[in-house]
């Protein structure tokens, strides 16, 4: 299997698992962890695409809320100082990646002349 096919298969499997998670979460899970969602159904298909993408996060949050490990105050904590470092690092990494990518590009071999290695069978070159 080549890299391109492996990537396509990975995405396909990821979405298939996401589909199963979406089915269980929207039928069973959401009613158990979000009282505001009980009795509301029309919006549920709208969040299927999101679940397909981030199903591990959905499972993790479902588990955290289901087991009572959630700290509801955490969402109001101020942004951690590490975020600044992360944002700065990301800006540097993106810039360096672009520079390395551009400087390492292949040059179109414009001067390469096609070479006839042999004439077709039954003819002389």
């Amino acid at each position, binding site marked *: 299997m080549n890299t*391109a096919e492996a990537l396509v298969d990975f995405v396909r499997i990821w979405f298939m698992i996401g589909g199963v998670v979406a089915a269980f979460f929207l039928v069973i899970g959401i009613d158990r962890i979000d009282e505001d969602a009980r009795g509301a159904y029309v919006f549920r298909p709208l969040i299927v695409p999101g679940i397909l993408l981030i199903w591990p996060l959905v499972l993790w949050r479902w588990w955290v809320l289901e087991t009572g490990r959630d700290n509801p105050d955490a969402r109001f904590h101020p942004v951690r100082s590490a975020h600044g470092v992360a944002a700065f690092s990301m800006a540097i990494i993106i810039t360096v990646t672009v520079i390395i990518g551009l400087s390492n590009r292949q040059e179109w071999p414009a001067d390469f002349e096609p070479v006839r*290695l042999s004439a077709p069978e039954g003819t002389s070159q």
Partner: protein
Amino acid sequence: MKKDTTPFFVGYLKPAKKLRSFLLAVGVGLALLLTTFGIVIGGTQDDPGYGSFRFDYGPQTVSGVVEMLPYPILHVTDGNERVPAGETLMLTAGGKTGVAQRAARFDGKKVKATGVVLERGALNMLQLRGGKRGLDAIDGEEATAPTPEPLGKWKLAGEICDGKCLAGAMRPGRGLAHKACAALCLIGDIPAVFVSTKPVEGADFLMVLGKDGEALPKAAYDYIAQYISVEGDITRHGNLLVFTIDPGTIEVLE
């Protein structure tokens, strides 16, 4: 208690005097930076070429003989002003799918084909309409595909692309920026095309097949969109050159 006079930015209020010069500098600096970045990145990109979907022609209907290579091609026998008789068209469906399965049962038969033309110089492709409206047999009429003409064994340099994007479905339809798209198109059975650095027997673009005449070998997939040299036999089918490559001879160029 000492009054805190640190200026504070509120988006919907007039900015504090102390902040005005800073905000102006940041705003102008950011605009200049992004403009420069855009010009520099844009300036390093290759010309995407002149290929395009010819929706302006409207749907074109032509008749011809289907040849399975195994990518299907159509040798036009009854053409029109836009697609004259004698043209050889690669065939594709909408999106990232080929028409190998649909066309296989018409191999060697005369058909009527309707679709939108993609043109890039001598590289022509027809994106067929769905079902029988796109491709259907013409009963009672006989026609034969041109006899293939072997042109010998060659070593070429260039790039493997998918024929649809290269012909004009995407801009750019080649190069590293297009690698993932090309791989998906080729996995979807859209004909593979080799872009040669210099014309070979008058053609810059050649359909690529495997050594034994199969669709693009899996071993070649990782070299899509890279500049490579490769050896193989070239055969003329109508006015389309077909390059049957030996993936073992692929070399990535500097």
